[in-house]
């Protein structure tokens, strides 16, 4: 399986509110609130760190979840945000815009 890289789209609006990230899509103004786990992934989405590494180093230790299940949840989350243009996904590192 090739690594997956994720990066935040620069066209969104976002702010941390308490322990949740509020994200607004520029494309359709849809508003999302990310739970603490999703917020952790979001904050780690630098375009250079593979998703699997994010899950292994930031999600599993902090939220005490099994790597396989955590990766599956993370992939679903990433797909959902990518479909709204909020996250960029690639099998290559993503350069900053």
């Amino acid at each position, binding site marked *: 399986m090739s690594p997956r890289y994720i990066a935040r789209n620069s066209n969104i*609006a976002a702010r941390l*509110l*308490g322990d949740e990230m509020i994200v*607004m899509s*520029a494309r359709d103004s849809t508003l999302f609130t990310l739970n603490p786990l999703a917020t952790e992934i979001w904050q780690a989405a630098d375009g250079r760190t593979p998703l699997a590494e994010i899950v292994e180093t930031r999600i599993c230790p902090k939220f005490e979840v099994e790597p396989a299940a955590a990766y599956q949840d993370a992939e679903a989350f990433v797909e959902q945000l990518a479909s709204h243009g909020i996250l960029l996904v690639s099998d290559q590192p993503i350069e900053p815009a």
Partner: protein
Amino acid sequence: MSSLLDQVAAKALALGVPLSVQLDLTWRCNLRCLHCYLEHDGGAELPAGAFAEILDQLAGAGALFLVLSGGEVLLRQDFFEILEHARARLFSVKLKTNGTLLGASEARRLRALAVQQVDISIYSHRREVHDGVTRMPGSLERSLAAVRELRSQGVSVRLVDVLMRQNVSDYQGVQALAAELGAAFVVDPTVTPKLNGDRSVTALRIGGSTLARIFRDPSVVGHVGEFCAPPPPPDEAVLNEYPCSAGHTACYISPCGDLYPCVQFPLPCGNLRRQTFAEIWRGSPALTQVRAIRSRDLPVCRQCANLSRCSRCPGLACLEGDLLGPSTLDCEKAHARTSIPPSLAASR
């Protein structure tokens, strides 16, 4: 069921976060609209660097929704520098402009910067009426050209129609224009006194019977039966509510850095050249005073059956001389909406 935005607002309220901020970059304007509440001449303006610092502080305080307004924002040569900084800090930006200085290149830049929405004031579909309000010949043509440029770039546009005696009969024409241009449309019957206290502009306000007719137009209010239904008597939950978000999750910053609870709420809270945003937001006695007020503390309004349908503006009440009193404009609006007169409402 509350919307996600309602839930976010409730969380911001609980955390004391200024979720929404209006930032006026200038009070200068190239139009001289009949109803404008601003003095356009003179007045200090912060440089772009100072606004950038304020934006950093606002982002740090948790502000997400930013309205950049004026005056006419495009009169500032450094407008895009400020906007770029706001977007780099991931604000959701809405822009208020008259559009007369907005051409193809500005529209492209607004699109590239992912501005959420541009509000452009259109007072009539008829040149003589719109230009009569703005007192600038050719302004309707130029504003509509801006709308077309923005729409061609895919930028969301909303036509804002402030209703006055001069133009109220034309709102359906503006509404049709908005549909033709692919823009949203909203009417606003609020004509506020000038910030210097001059109330003469309020003579432009439309009468209650006209407002009642507009409030029964489903193309404006949606479901008329729901919108105009007499409200249930105020219960404990309603009496414990804050009158509005001003000073709680929203605030206004003037071109010289003065901070107020809202653009319509002339209660000075501090100045951002002398204090940080956090110092004012957390420590201003004026904001503390505003935040202490619940609906039950309003001696007249708490007895009014229209309370839960009323959009009472504490700023307009303040302009009328009593922070805890009614805002008569909102009394009229609530009356037009529910048909329950304020006097009767107050005695029920």
